[in-house]
């Protein structure tokens, strides 16, 4: 499909107060598709990604050497503004005038305290679209509480369901869910609201709660409780409608392969691939029902076979026989050994002025004509002058005056 060079959200103007992951990623989806996203930052109160030091390249004193910030804020503009400065309102008012959309994810009530409520903004710009994203939502008894990714995952029931039946819940060591999934809903709501505004002239206030997004994910489990009084819990890697369905040890240090057999046809193919050992002919493994009843034993026997091969070999052998199987890949595999992710352009090398060249993730949903155009993240306040003079139309004198009064700190 021909790339037309245009981007889908060309012309859309977004004011991004996004903090940490949730708000920042929401703005990122819009920016990567062509929206002009202006991120409001403060030198006095740097966001967590500006001070993050999880990788060794990041130092204590430079807000611009943080690849985490880049991953959350590609394709954006950055302006610094001291929101508590008496003259900051002059800039904010013009930004609100300029913007189609405002995204924020402070603890509910914070924007109001800053004098930036939806009522205030919609007085300045009546058809503005504003999104408040949070863990709990803007209303309800817990609205003023604050939380993080794990808070939303815990309350929604998601965490309870991961792990082994004889042990407590586990969660991915370093991989977030609510903070990544909720932004899809924030951005979808924003873009749908932009289309609604185009048709009706009306703006919108949108309230997105991570807890609610995550609770939608486990809806079938909630229905099972209501309809059947069955309280589902942790099952390891097992599910009721496939066996074997698990993660099996392979040659190498902590290497594993996932294998899943659903239908009888797949079971036959699986048996054949592993050389039709006598145990596969036993009655206790003949049907899905009997395999489920004897799953402990089944998994032991499967593991005896998988231990003799590399995870990559098993994936290939199984896939050739049309049995679902996949290497349990680690980050090194994703970056270096996965031809499919490479074909997709999962990580695109881009040059950051301070950090240098490194792989930036691209949106995993590919618009094949109006392709995402990912640019590296801005340095702190990199576009303050550009935004004020070019986007907001301030005169040079006015900008300098505010600058000298330290409004842009």
């Amino acid at each position, binding site marked *: 499909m021909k790339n037309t060079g245009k981007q889908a*959200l060309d012309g859309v103007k977004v004011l991004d107060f996004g903090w940490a992951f949730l708000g920042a990623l929401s703005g990122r989806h819009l920016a990567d598709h062509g929206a002009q996203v202006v991120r409001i930052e403060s030198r006095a109160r740097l966001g967590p990604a500006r001070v993050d030091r999880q990788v060794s390249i990041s130092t204590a004193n430079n807000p611009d050497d943080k690849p985490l910030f880049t991953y959350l804020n590609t394709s954006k503009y950055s302006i610094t503004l001291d929101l508590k400065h008496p003259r900051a309102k002059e800039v904010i008012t013009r930004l609100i005038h300029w913007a189609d959309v405002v995204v924020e994810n402070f603890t509910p009530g914070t924007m109001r305290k800053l004098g930036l409520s939806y009522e205030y903004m919609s007085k300045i710009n009546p058809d503005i679209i504003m999104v408040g994203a949070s863990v709990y939502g803007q*209303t309800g008894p817990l609205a003023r509480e604050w939380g993080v990714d794990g808070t939303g995952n*815990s309350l929604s029931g998601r965490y309870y369901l991961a792990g082994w039946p004889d042990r407590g819940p586990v969660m991915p060591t370093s991989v977030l869910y609510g903070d990544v999934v909720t932004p899809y809903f924030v951005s979808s709501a924003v873009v749908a609201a932009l289309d609604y505004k185009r048709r009706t002239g009306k703006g919108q206030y949108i309230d997105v709660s991570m807890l609610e997004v995550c609770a939608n994910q486990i809806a079938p489990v909630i229905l099972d409780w209501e309809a059947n009084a069955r309280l589902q819990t942790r099952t390891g890697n097992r599910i009721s409608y496939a066996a074997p369905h698990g993660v099996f040890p392979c040659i190498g240090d902590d290497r594993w392969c996932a294998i899943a057999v659903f239908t009888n046809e797949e079971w036959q193919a699986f048996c054949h691939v592993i050389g039709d050992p006598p145990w596969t002919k036993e009655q206790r493994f003949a049907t899905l029902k009997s395999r489920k009843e004897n799953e402990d034993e089944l998994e032991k026997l499967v593991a005896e076979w998988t231990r003799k091969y590399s995870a990559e070999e098993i994936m290939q052998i199984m896939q050739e026989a049309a049995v679902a199987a996949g290497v349990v890949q680690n980050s090194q595999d994703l970056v270096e050994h996965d031809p499919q992710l490479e074909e997709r352009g999962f990580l695109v090398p881009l040059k950051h002025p301070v950090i240098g060249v490194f792989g930036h993730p691209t949106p995993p949903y590919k618009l094949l004509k109006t392709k995402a155009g990912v640019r590296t993240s801005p340095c702190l306040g990199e576009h303050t002058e550009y935004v004020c003079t070019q986007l907001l139309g301030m005169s040079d004198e006015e900008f300098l005056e505010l600058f000298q009064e330290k409004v842009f700190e």
Partner: protein
Amino acid sequence: MANGLLSGFRALDLTDEKGFACGKILASLGVDVIKIEKPGGDPARNIPPFYQDIPDPEKSLYWFAFNSDKQSITLNLETSQGHDLFMKLMKKSDFVLESFPPDYMDRLGLGYEALSRVNPKIIMTSITPFGQKAPYNHYKSCELVVAAMSGVLETTGDPDRPPVKESPNSVYFQANAAAALGTVISHYHREITGEGQQVDVSIQECAASRNINSLLSWLFDKRLIKRSGAINLLGRIRSRWIWPCKDGYIYWYLLGGQLGASSNRALSKWIDEDGMENPLRQVANWDEFDRAALTEETNDAFEEAIGKFFLRHTKKEIAEEGLKRGINAAVVNNPADVLANRHLAVRNFWADLGYPELGITLTHPKHFFLCNGTENYVRRRAPLIGEDNDEIYGKELGLSSREIAVLKETNVI
């Protein structure tokens, strides 16, 4: 007509379990979503759990959860009449959602190019495990396999056991939310320019894109972050996130600096009031508490004391008393707890949907977000197989009841 953000637009939804949550998200935005099922029904209707555990394509709770607010027609796309009927509907539609193996639609003459010749404005969203292109595009997959290939599985689970999956079909749900976003962004562009397009969603890549921290660790420090149970490793700080309590589990973590100060102080005070040994007392000023500087030994001592403390209290105590004291803990709710959660009830998060055929009402999550000017939520239970055949083929396409009967007999619908 519902007053949603995207009311008045129509989607044809050909997906199975890999993609049907995308259509549900669009339906909640007001899009008129028609599920097109093969005669006999979408094979994903056979996924458990079932109402009363009776395997029946009209009783899958899994299917109910992600197909509410859709209409259903049956159609055999592999027949020439089926092909033509689909094209007639497609001509009047705005979106096509599909999750077939790549090339399947092409082989039926229903690939994106063929559709766009008839309707240049059409947006076709394709949701597949690995995306449309080789080398893995024809690999067999499922939630577990795609989670494995995404890197997410590798970082989940106890260190002494194999990696373990997250809550059921987490990866599919995430990819479907991403697909809905890609669809809506394409829609915005199409409404301005008249140009439709295909959106190619790889479920694997969606999940892989969650590995923000573990990717950075590998790219910059050649360090692999391994699974560690309920211990979090965002950055270099090891921090327990999930703790057993008297009757379940609690989410809480020791956070440094001003952000964590008030909850740390409150927890320490509560431990004191319980008359327990409290090593947290050695922190003189929580506002200046540097989590990264905590030695492993001190961290272990803190965790031991906190662990013992939580074990003395119930979920309810920690939720209610903890809220008053501001310790900022959350209960690791089980599914029944979620349904009973007062905060969600006050926010009108639940919708009771009637299933007259089963004589029951089931409470479903009602919305993905709230909006002040429009109504974007669930209204109606998932459709029966072909429930809207008469409405769509008869009233809309103008087929007579005899013609519809013939289509049924010849297994076209």
